[in-house]
Every structure is written in structure tokens, then in C-alpha cells.
């Protein structure tokens, strides 16, 4: 049995500063088997696998191959140990052909196209890939690029393949093709790890499932002996009480009506698929979902930053009139008097100007105001001082570049500015990501305060415990679709976890 083990990781710990990404993890990867590495965002799956691929080195713990201790210092070392990783973001040179990318960086290889092509063909035939070695990468679809990455790894003689969320960008048909190839490789005795958070795929492809949660190893189970429900429980864990204050606002009313909202990205992949919901004034509507389920597109399309293909977005005024927002630019939306505030996920890259001080950043909302060509600096300066004072931002002055402030203070500047605009709708994307406990609570309180002022707050979050205690209702996204909208006061973590991975949640899965 023992000879079956390809790689064993024992007590692996990896820290980034104060954050423990992997906390003493044990993992066994077996030959001729497909292992799913399952976990929520930020549970440490990719970090763990990056240590096998030579991108990081563990701070503690040891990796063994065939019982021998192994040190992997670089991706090159990893290749020599027969480990190949296919990253989520492909690492290919666009202007090169498939063949050129496959041999890129191989020193001992004679760059003889004929030999390369025949070797590539041999690999392709063996596992039933289809690839044209002379095709340029920029002419390829996402799925073809992925094939090149896999062939590249196999060409280097990898026996252990790690695929980081391989199906995230594939269509269902392409996914099925990929799975066929993976099964062929398994039959050939390769050890395969796929990092994923899609339960149906875990069930479809893997032999074993290892679950991580918040950097800790929860356990490994055989796929045939488990169920999606059991896996979800392992993934999300038991509810933790946070004691976030949640008062109820009595006279809720519809504020934003979204119907059949559909968005497609540059590559033609559907990011939002018929999203329908109503956000109410005086409530916090939580948005839950695995990363990349359409949260970013949802907020950006409402604010006029992302093109809408289909559907309607209507703002309901205090008088009860509906104003269409589809097709308007952010400036037009602002000019029609729709009070909309947006705290984007990428704080310095979208919400703020890193090189400017607080005053310059307050101006982002007001710069156009006033007649004439000159900027009004006075009122932004006053606002900056007010935010500085009220939110206790730690900065030497209102002109100190916000890029050099700590994450929590950056967020206070951003949230402070957006709230100061007296919005009717306040949208926030991961507003507490990377913040310490105290600042997080300060932000929760600010949002609740807004809710009690009758503002419609939309809160995109990743921590289910927080969503369950802060929000009034939770909208769950799954692959761009609304998986369901639940009452946050009665819903359970398991229920939401299930909806995040399966459209419609448990009931829908049971019907299937």
C-alpha cells in the first residue's frame, strides 16, 4: 500500500506576516488517484500546493516523496521531482506557439521542432488531447490554453499534476473533456490534485477529498463514502457567534429593483445570468458566494461600470417613481440624482487615488461640482478633516498619500467618503477584508447606522458568520445565478454553504 503514496506533506505551516495561511497541515497524494482539495476562499488551498510547486517554501514541516525527505526550492526543483502545477492564471507567452511554450526554459532540449512536435503528439494521443503545436497562444481559447499548460507539464515528465481551479473558466462541455483527460491520466498512474470549491465536480471526478478550512486541515474522506452535505459541513464548519448588533428597521421599502440582469465579459463568458432581486431601504442585503461568482460584476453593472447585456435595473425614488439605470455612465447616474455610494473591492485601484492625500480623495466625489475651471479644495478639505476626526483615521495629515496608510485606515477613508455623500444605496464589496477586528466592527457599526437611517445597504462578504449576523437577508450567488435569497435571522451556515456550490441549494439537489 505504502508504495502507492506519491507525496506526503507533514506538519506544513506557512505564514505571511501575522497571517497563518497553512497551519500544520498533513496531506497524502496517491499515485493513480485524483484528489480534490476543497475549501472556501482563503482556506489555504493554493498556498499549500504552491509549496509543492516550489513557489513558496514551508516555514515548518516536511515534504516526503517515496518516504525520502524532499526540498523544493524552485519550480525547476519541482519539475525535477516530477511535480507540475497548472496555475489558475496561465503562465504562457502569448506571441509564442504552443510548441515554443511547451519547451520554454528547457535547457538541455535540442530545439528541433520535429522532435518536439512528435513528442507533443505522443503525449496528446496517449491522453486524447487535441492540440496544434504550431498555433499561437493568442489565437487560442481559454480551454486550449489550459491544454497547452497541461501538455507542458507532462512534457517535462511530471507524474504529479496539480490543477488550480481548472474548471473555473471552462464551459460544461470543455469541463467534461478535461475530466476525460484527467481520468486517462489517472489510469496511466499519475497522481492528480485538483483545487476546487465546486462540489458537483468533486463528486464527479475525484477518488478522495481533502478539506481545508481557514488554513487548517479538516480531514480526508473517500468520495464514494461522502455526500455534498457532509462535505459542506466540513468546509464551512460550525457557526461562530460574533455578537454584531442587528437592530431592525421597521418601515422597509423597495429601493432598487433588479430584474433578469445578465452580463457577459470580453471573452464571451457569462458573468451574471438573469439576476433578479429587490434591495430595500432600511436593510442590509448580504451577497454571499464563492469568489468570482459574479459579485464584482453585480455591483459594477449597477453603478454603470460594467456593460449590461440584458435586464433592468431600476432605482425607486422617495416618491415611488422608478428610474432606469441601464446604459447610464457613473456620471449620468450621479447627475440624475440617484444617491448611490460604492465601496469597491479594489480600494486603492478603484475607490481611491493612492498617491493623493485624504483631501484629494474626498474630491473624487465632488471634483466636478462648482462652476468654472478651478477645483474647489475647501469643502473636500473640510470633509477630509471631518472623516479624519469621526472615523479616527491614523494619518499625519490630510495631504499624506493614502497609499502609505494601513489597510484599515485606507478603508476608513473610502467608507467615510462614500457615507458622507448621504447615499440612498450603499454598496460595499468585501469591506472588512484584511482589517483587524476593531476596525471590522467599526465598519459593521457604520453600515448598521446607515441601515437605521433608511439606506439600502448591499454587503458583499466572504465570511458566512459575519453575513449571518450582520445582514437582514442574504442573496446567494452561484456561477452568476441567484441560488436563493434567505432570511439571515433564520438561515444556517450549512444551508448557505450548500447554495453557494449548487444553484437552488439542497432542495434543488435533492430533486436532481
Amino acid at each position, binding site marked *: 500500500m505504502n508504495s502507492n503514496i506519491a507525496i506526503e506533506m507533514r506538519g506544513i505551516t506557512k505564514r505571511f506576516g501575522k497571517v497563518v495561511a497553512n497551519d500544520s497541515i498533513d496531506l497524502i497524494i496517491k499515485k493513480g488517484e485524483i484528489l480534490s482539495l476543497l475549501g472556501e476562499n482563503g482556506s489555504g488551498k493554493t498556498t499549500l500546493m504552491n509549496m509543492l510547486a516550489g513557489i513558496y517554501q514551508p516555514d515548518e514541516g516536511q515534504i516526503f516523496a517515496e518516504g525520502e525527505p524532499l526540498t523544493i526550492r524552485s519550480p525547476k526543483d519541482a519539475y525535477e521531482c516530477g511535480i507540475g502545477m497548472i496555475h489558475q492564471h496561465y503562465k504562457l507567452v502569448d506571441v509564442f506557439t504552443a510548441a515554443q511554450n511547451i519547451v520554454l526554459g528547457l535547457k538541455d532540449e535540442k530545439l528541433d521542432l520535429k522532435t518536439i512536435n512528435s513528442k507533443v503528439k505522443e503525449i496528446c494521443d496517449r491522453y486524447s488531447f487535441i492540440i496544434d503545436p504550431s498555433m499561437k497562444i493568442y489565437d487560442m481559447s481559454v480551454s486550449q490554453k489550459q491544454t497547452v499548460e497541461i501538455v507542458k507539464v507532462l512534457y517535462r515528465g511530471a507524474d504529479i499534476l496539480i490543477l488550480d481551479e481548472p474548471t473555473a473558466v471552462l464551459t460544461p462541455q470543455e469541463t467534461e473533456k478535461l475530466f476525460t483527460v484527467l481520468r486517462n491520466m489517472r489510469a496511466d498512474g499519475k497522481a492528480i490534485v485538483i483545487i476546487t470549491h465546486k462540489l458537483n465536480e468533486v463528486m464527479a471526478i475525484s477518488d478522495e477529498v481533502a478539506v481545508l478550512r481557514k488554513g487548517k486541515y479538516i480531514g480526508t474522506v473517500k468520495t464514494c463514502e461522502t455526500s455534498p452535505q457532509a462535505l459542506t459541513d466540513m468546509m464551512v464548519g460550525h457557526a461562530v457567534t460574533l455578537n454584531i448588533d442587528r437592530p431592525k428597521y421597521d418601515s422597509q421599502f423597495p429601493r432598487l429593483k433588479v430584474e433578469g440582469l445578465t452580463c457577459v465579459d470580453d471573452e464571451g463568458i457569462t458573468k451574471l445570468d438573469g439576476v433578479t432581486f429587490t434591495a430595500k431601504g432600511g436593510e442590509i442585503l448580504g451577497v454571499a458566494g464563492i469568489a468570482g461568482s459574479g459579485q464584482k460584476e453585480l455591483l459594477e453593472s449597477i453603478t454603470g461600470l460594467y456593460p449590461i447585456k440584458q435586464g433592468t435595473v431600476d432605482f425607486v425614488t422617495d416618491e415611488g417613481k422608478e428610474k432606469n439605470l441601464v446604459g447610464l455612465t457613473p456620471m449620468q447616474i450621479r447627475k440624475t440624482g440617484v444617491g448611490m455610494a460604492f465601496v469597491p473591492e479594489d480600494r486603492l485601484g478603484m475607490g481611491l487615488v493612492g498617491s*493623493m492625500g485624504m483631501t*484629494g480623495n474626498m474630491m473624487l466625489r465632488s471634483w466636478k461640482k462648482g462652476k468654472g*475651471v478651478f*477645483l474647489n479644495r475647501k469643502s473636500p478639505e473640510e470633509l477630509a478633516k471631518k472623516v479624519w476626526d469621526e472615523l479616527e483615521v491614523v494619518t499625519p495629515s490630510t495631504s499624506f498619500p493614502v497609499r502609505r496608510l494601513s489597510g484599515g485606515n485606507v478603508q476608513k477613508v473610502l467608507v467615510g467618503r462614500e457615507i458622507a455623500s448621504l447615499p440612498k444605496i450603499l454598496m460595499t464589496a468585501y469591506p472588512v477584508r484584511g482589517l483587524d477586528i476593531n476596525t471590522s466592527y467599526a465598519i459593521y457599526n457604520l453600515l448598521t447606522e446607515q441601515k437605521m437611517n433608511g439606506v439600502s445597504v448591499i454587503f458583499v462578504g466572504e465570511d458566512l458568520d459575519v453575513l449571518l449576523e450582520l445582514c437582514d437577508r442574504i442573496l446567494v450567488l452561484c456561477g452568476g445565478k441567484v441560488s436563493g435569497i434567505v432570511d439571515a435571522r433564520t438561515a444556517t451556515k450549512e444551508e448557505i454553504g450548500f447554495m453557494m456550490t449548487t444553484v437552488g441549494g439542497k432542495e434543488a439537489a435533492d430533486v436532481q
Partner: protein
Amino acid sequence: MSSETVNIPFVRLAKRESMDPRKVWAIRIGSIVIAILLGMLPMFITGNNPFKAYQIIISGALGKPIYIKQTIKIAIPLLGCALAIAPCFKMRFWNIGAEGQITAGAIAASYFALNWYDKVPSFVLLAIMFIAATIAGGIWGLIPAFFKAKWNTNETLFTLMMNYIIIGIVSWLQGGPWEGRKGSQIIPMFNDSARLPVVFGIHCGWIIVLVLVILMHIYMNYTKHGYEIAVIGDSENTARYAGMNVGRIMMRTMFLSGGICGIIGFIVVTGANHTLYNGVANGVGFTSITVAWLSQLNAFAMILISIMLAILTKGSNTLQTKLKVPASISDIVIGILLFCMLSCEFFINYKLIFRPRKTEIKEASV
């Protein structure tokens, strides 16, 4: 343990968080000192006394009133053009087509100088030339910005190629429609009424660029346009988020930048050359990039930097004639100076971390 130490590189780079402003200036001054010392090297090699050479550079640029005037004449287009490209660079739009935009302005100005000199009074003629040059330069700058805004073309290549097109057009004019004496390949000298008046012994272009310094300072720091430019330069996404129309702002800024370059073209043909030829821009469009960078896009600092570069250029011309050193030697000296000054910014932004010595590693591991 020994195998591990091999993996630590001898020196690695890390971005600095921030730096004491006094230290920043110490590094800048230090780099100039190093540049001056290194600049001595080529003079040693060619068998000249470096101290004497530096003395000649200074006295050749500033020794007599006439030298000073010549030095200032070199500085005028450099300063003006650096002002022109500053807003583009602030926006991170890499306009390296100032050379062509200057030439476009010069052509437009020359058209009126050659054809209208007897039709309108001098100051009207100059005003027309000024406006025509601004529009022509502006349009030459607008074209690449339009393509960038619509189809996201690469502005660096585009603006560069536009230079060659317009310079080719001048060559054609020189040998064709605007040729003076048949076969001369030269455009005739402008009539006196198409020449800039002289103030304090130098054509009044210096007044125009000094006014531009103040206007540009105000534009960049106190206007809505200046704010938009700064936001786009920091992050285009933030600009879109704030409701800015990035494409339109790009086109507007490039029109402005090209327009100012056009004004410089006007100044050069009417103030300095009094005619048009294909070398009218004379590399100013490229050298001014150095001026803009060295002054960190600060309009007032550009005055100092452009004068400094002008002193070097004028001084090394004198060096050539006095010490009989080849022209290339003075180019090398200028190159070394610029290299040191530009690279010091690297040391301000990054720090070097050297590998600790073996003994230190052992101590640490004990």
C-alpha cells in the same frame, strides 16, 4: 546550512516605504558629484585636464553676455517642450512625439510667414502664426490619442512614428512646393515681419515659455482638468469609478500637449531659425523628456533643469573648439551626467539588501 546560504542572492532589491527628504536631497547631490567625477574619465583618456575642461564648459556657457544669451536660446525650447509633455506623463500617456508636434506647429507657422507676410501687419501675422501653430501641433498630438481612446493602440509607437511622417513632409516641402531658389533644397528666410521681436537681446520666446510655466503650474495643480489628469495617471479604474470619461480626457490632454509643442515650433522658426527645415525640432522633443523626468514634472524645477542642460550643451560646444576634443566626447560627458542623475531616482525608490556575511548567518542560526 551551507547549501541554504547559496540560495540567498548577493544583493536584492526592496521598495522603500518612504525616505527622509534631507536624505533624498543628499542622494541627488551625491549623484551629481559622482557624475562630475565620472565625467572626468573620458577627458583623462583623451589626454585633457578635466578641471580645465569643466572650467571651459562653465565659462563657455556663462562667461560672456553673448554666451549666456546663446545658452538661454537653447533652454527655451527645452523648457517649453518639457512643459508640454508634463501633463501627458502625469497621465501616464507616453507621448514621445513632441518632436513631430513641434514640427507640425513649425510648418503651420511657416505657411503664414511665407505667404501672408505682405498681407497683414507684423503683430497680426505673428498672432495668426501662433494660433495656426497651436492648432497644427494640437491635431498632430490628438491623432494618436484618438486611436488610443478608441482602439487602445500603443501610444508610444504611434507618437514616435508620427514624428517621422511630419519630418518627411518638411523634407518634401523643402525640395518641392516651398523651395526658394530652384535646386537649393532650402525654404527662403522669413520676412522681418514674421520674426519674433527681441527683448533684452533674446527673442521674446523666453517670455512666452515663462508665462507657460506659470499657466502649466496652475493648470496641473488647481484646475479640474489637472485633477482628472492626476487621477487617470494613478489609476484608470479609479477615474472611471469617479465618473471621468478617460478617453475624452486623454484626447483633450494630448491636444493641449501637442498645442504647446506647436507653440514651441512657432518660437523656434520665428525666433531662432527664421526659416523652416527638416531638423527644426533638433531632438528637443526627446531631450525634453529628460527635463520633464528630472524635474519630476514640477513646472518650476523644469526652469532649472532646462538651463542646466543648456549650459552643458553650450559649454561642450565650446569645449570642442577650445580643447579640440571630438564632439562625441562632450556627448559622452552629458550622457554620464544624465545617467547618474536619472539613476539616483532608483536609489531613492529602492534599497539594496546585501547578503549577510557567513558569520552573521551562523550566529543567527545558533
